[in-house]
């Protein structure tokens, strides 16, 4: 919270659940109960089959690095060059994010590397979902949601 200079999202009635979810350190997606399509960003209907019958569920938080750029121009919320990234969530949808706990270099940022979600408090009301390289965990460890 020492760098309060990101442009903050302003939730709408259709997206409020997502931002309530990140506050509770959960990455919430929506899924159509008719055709099973999982989608993002949030909306109260299925963009695949137009059904209004959709449900919210917690994603695993696991993703892979789909693509990125490393911005060289100074941004008040970042120290030095930083990656703006696209990640493919395990459940299918893609989202924009930043990669944390990782050097912001082409050498460190390898496409398709496994990632897991982190939540960063950027204002009183908003935690942003960011992603970090997956920690090498003991076999069978399923505690990827633990991010503190």
């Amino acid at each position, binding site marked *: 919270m020492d760098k309060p200079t990101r442009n*903050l*999202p302003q939730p709408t009635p259709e997206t409020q659940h997502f931002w309530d979810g990140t506050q509770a350190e959960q990455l919430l997606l929506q899924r159509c109960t008719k055709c099973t399509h999982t989608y993002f*960003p949030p909306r109260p209907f299925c963009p695949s089959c137009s059904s209004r019958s959709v449900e919210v569920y917690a994603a695993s938080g696991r993703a892979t690095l789909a693509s990125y*750029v490393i911005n060289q121009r100074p941004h008040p919320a970042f120290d030095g060059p930083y990656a703006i990234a696209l990640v493919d969530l395990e459940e299918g949808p893609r989202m*924009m994010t930043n990669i944390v706990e990782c050097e912001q270099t082409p050498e460190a940022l390898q496409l398709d590397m496994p990632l897991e979600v982190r939540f960063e408090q950027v204002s009183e009301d908003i935690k942003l979902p960011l992603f970090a390289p997956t920690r090498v965990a003991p076999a069978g460890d399923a505690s990827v949601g633990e991010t503190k």
Partner: protein
Amino acid sequence: MTGVVVVGAAETTELGKIPHLSQQQLHADAALNAMADAGLTAKDIDGIATAGERPTDLAYYLGITPTWVDGTSVGGCSFMLHVRHAVAAIASGQCTTVLITHGESGRSGVGRSGYPRAPASLAGQFEVPFGPMGPPTMFTLPVLRYMKDYGMTHEQLAMVAVVQREWASMNPRASFQDEISVADVLNSKMIAYPFHLLECCLVTDGGGALILTKADRAADFPQPPVHILGTGESVETPMISQMDDLTSSRAFKVAGSFAMHDAGITHADVDHLMVYDAFAHLPIYGLEDLGFCKKGEAADFIWEQNTAPGGSLPMNTNGGGLSYMHSGMYGMYALQESVRQIRGNAPAQVKDANVSLCLGVGGMFGASGCIVFGKESK
């Protein structure tokens, strides 16, 4: 064929840095030049389309009483969509003579309206917080994916800029005319890895305008008619993160295939190609999504000089957004170059340019419009 022709086409008198004209006057300057080109005045125009400014503002400012108005605004390819909508309006009798204008004080910012992304919009919520700083950090986002999936090298991406500078070196109105090498591109300032300065478009002031009417009136005008053979348009997403496929534009595919089918042409019929190049990867996506190259082969196609002067498929012959000019909504300048090539008066004129295909992009792979022009009505 659509039965509609371009009878007036012009850019602003000056291009580049025009701090002494407001954005609205850039529209008007181009419009007046296009009317002079067609031998018309505002009283002869009964349809108006524009983006960036409201058609109400322009019609009033220029003294036009329209029976048909189009303010479609989907970014830099809006003018391709205006051409397409004007074709339908003229063919159905809603108007006879359409003026399409563009003007943008992209560099000087005189009287320019902004494009804020509201914090409650989807992009404002799900992209802006992660620090993108304009098109150089967003339009470029899919490219590392393309490079990994199809083996494109940094040198190949740089070659796009090199080839377009070759074209620009033949164009006295181009902002940059000195030839450059792949090494020059790769040694230019890094803007957003993997993109260097010379792989990003210019930021300039300028404008352009087109006048369209029915083909059967073409003989009444001083310029040789440029026939509109086919048109296409589509939109995909306002968020680069939500493209269907990071290595392909759905809107390019939909607009391009519709336009080619509408025109009744095959790839072999196309003598001249314009692909809106805000950044160096756009011609690569365009060549593949239009079907001129197989998936993954466009970078080699450009590397082997096929789109360069003397090549089999001359592309972006004005120097493009990378070297000619780019005010923000570049689509109008791509259309102008297609018209010049078909008229036969382009600075870097392609021999026997009978069919020109012009593909535009709007937003960041958000929209597309495609126009096929021809010397004959086909």
